[in-house]
């Protein structure tokens, strides 16, 4: 019956038993053993054989690379060199905890000294060390729990490494106590269509195995639900499932005004799923996945193949590709390795590309070559554009490579305010609401303590969107939104009311947004937008929009 409040991601609802994610264990202290070397030796042996057996069991449950990685982890736990190192310390009077911790620290240091890819993998050792320590202390191993049945995962927040390991068949819903709507957890939930409520501070009180209803549409977690509530939740979940299975039509308002519904994609392989969910094209293709290697940029031919695969999936459709967006929360050492006090305000996006122009030129070359071989309608855009001069620079360069449609992302308030001048050069504008909100509200989008500022419903953000919408209408240039805001059905209506003509989002959000648009005319959307714009803050903007319908 009682409900905890948070920010819902998407419109779904799910019911299930809670499993908490255990926190990382603090490092042990180096106090001499009081139990004696023999006792410590026996404890280490038991803990290590338990962890090795547990990892082997997990390895047997999966296939492919995941299996090999887990097998390697098991082998590391059971390693003879590790045993020697631990024995040396135990014999010298250390506790089992310290011996394990210190032995792993030694291996970690030698890997870090190597640097590069191997250096980055040093963190893999931490997971094993933590598992052994957890066993020694008799507590749950840190990381994503694996109870052997589907569960609702409760965590402070999920790191990218955790999200990569999530078994989506087992996770019914996500609840986080920290992190806002742009946290990694929220982005993962949106991408995969997982029911999630983030920033639910009071969820710290949830205990393992208690049943909760996670209602993303309401932004609540219902604890101790009664039979009625459970039945309603099950009914809603079934309805959504049926609606998702229905064939998708192109996005349009109730009066027939077309609003293109596009997909945000991170790799070419995701194109088929997006098309199956009714995406009319791609509104944001992030090219960062090609640049994951820390040491060098991919060659033109590697890039061309990836772009060709993407474009081939959307013949005759619009595909908007964003050139490399590095810096701030996603630094690339070969592009920007200087330490910055404020990376979000530093050499990132187009600024970083201009500083390494050969990388930009290679990317444009590969895009033009892929475009020539495929039938899609390729648009290219630059991230983090702040000035008219940058707009002129990028669009001229893109056209020089034969790319017909060149535009900009509007993520910086200066670009929104001068949208009419920027759009004199650019063929289109795509508003990135996550960064636009971060820069408008001066609130780091990755910082939980200021997550409450990071709300795209804020009227200041909406006013900037309206500015871009007006400029687009005046100049006859398309304006789209490709931030997380487009995936919020009611906010999508507001954006359309502000003059936005296309919405790009995680494919899993398309069905809900399509439904919300189909229920309203353009006049309705403008009325909802006006109500939100007139509010004092994000919460009242949302409430006003809901009241207007």
């Amino acid at each position, binding site marked *: 019956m009682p409900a905890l409040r948070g920010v819902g991601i998407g419109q779904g609802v799910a019911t299930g038993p809670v499993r908490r994610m255990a926190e990382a264990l603090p490092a042990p202290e180096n106090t001499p053993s009081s139990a004696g070397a023999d006792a410590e030796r026996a404890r280490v042996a038991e803990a290590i054989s338990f962890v090795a057996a547990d990892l082997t069991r997990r390895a047997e449950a999966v296939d492919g690379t995941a299996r*090999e990685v887990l097998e390697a*982890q098991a082998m590391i736990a059971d390693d*003879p*060199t590790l045993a020697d190192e631990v024995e040396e310390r135990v014999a010298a009077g250390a506790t089992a905890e310290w011996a394990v911790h210190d032995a792993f620290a030694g291996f970690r240091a030698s890997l870090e000294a190597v640097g590069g*890819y*191997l250096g980055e993998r040093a963190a893999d050792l931490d997971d094993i060390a933590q598992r052994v320590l957890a066993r020694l202390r008799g507590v749950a191993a840190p990381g994503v729990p694996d109870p052997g049945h589907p569960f609702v995962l409760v965590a402070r927040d999920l790191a990218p490494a955790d999200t990569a390991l999530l078994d989506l068949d087992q996770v019914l819903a996500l609840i986080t106590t920290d992190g806002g709507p742009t946290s990694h957890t929220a982005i993962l939930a949106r991408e995969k269509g997982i029911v999630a409520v983030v920033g639910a501070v009071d969820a710290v009180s949830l205990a393992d195995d208690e049943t909760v209803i996670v209602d993303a549409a309401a932004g609540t977690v219902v604890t101790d639900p009664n039979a009625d509530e459970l039945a309603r939740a099950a009914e809603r979940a079934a309805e959504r499932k049926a609606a998702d299975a229905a064939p998708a039509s192109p996005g349009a308002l109730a009066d027939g005004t077309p609003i293109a519904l596009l997909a945000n994609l991170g790799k070419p392989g995701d194109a088929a799923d997006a098309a199956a969910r009714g995406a009319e094209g791609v509104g944001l293709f992030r090219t960062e996945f090609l640049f994951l290697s820390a040491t060098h940029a991919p060659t033109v031919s590697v890039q061309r193949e990836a772009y060709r695969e993407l474009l081939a999936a959307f013949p005759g459709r619009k595909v908007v590709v964003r050139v490399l967006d590095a810096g701030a929360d996603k630094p690339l050492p070969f592009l920007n390795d200087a330490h910055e006090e404020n990376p979000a305000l530093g050499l990132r996006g187009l600024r970083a590309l201009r500083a390494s122009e050969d990388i930009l030129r290679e990317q444009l070359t590969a895009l033009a070559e892929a475009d020539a071989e495929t039938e899609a309608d390729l648009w290219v855009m630059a991230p983090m554009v702040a000035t008219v001069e940058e707009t002129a620079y990028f669009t001229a360069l893109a056209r020089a490579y034969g790319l017909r449609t060149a535009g900009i992302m509007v993520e910086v308030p200066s670009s929104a305010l001068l949208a009419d001048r920027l759009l004199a050069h650019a063929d289109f504008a795509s508003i990135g609401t996550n960064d636009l909100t971060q820069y408008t509200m001066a609130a780091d989008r990755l910082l939980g303590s200021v997550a409450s500022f990071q709300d795209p419903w804020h009227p200041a953000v909406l006013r900037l969107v309206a500015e871009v919408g007006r400029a687009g209408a005046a100049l006859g240039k398309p304006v789209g939104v490709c931030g997380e805001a487009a995936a919020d059905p009611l906010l999508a209506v507001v954006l359309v009311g502000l003059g936005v003509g296309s919405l790009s989002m995680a494919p899993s959000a398309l069905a809900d947004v399509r439904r919300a648009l189909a229920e309203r005319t353009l006049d309705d959307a403008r009325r909802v937008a006006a109500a939100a714009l007139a509010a004092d803050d994000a919460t009242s903007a949302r409430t006003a929009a809901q009241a207007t319908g």
Partner: protein
Amino acid sequence: MTALSRTVRIGSSHGLHARPAKIFAQAAKETGIPVTIAKDAGKAVNAASILGVIALGLEQGDYATLSAEGEGAEAALDRLAELLVTDHDEGAA
């Protein structure tokens, strides 16, 4: 009986990180005889120890020297050298 040794260059694109190191250390264990591996002229470690192998920090193109003695040493070194020059990262993401 003299110790045999063989020097080869590492083939894996990302060096001997956990997965290729596992394949190698497992094979070394399965030879049933003690085999050591060293990077350049550095300290030799137990080739059957995945941690020892990982901690060498062998990257693609680095030289590694395998040593073993006794019955079957020749065949064991042949097989292990073959694993070291293979690129185990090829085709992996």
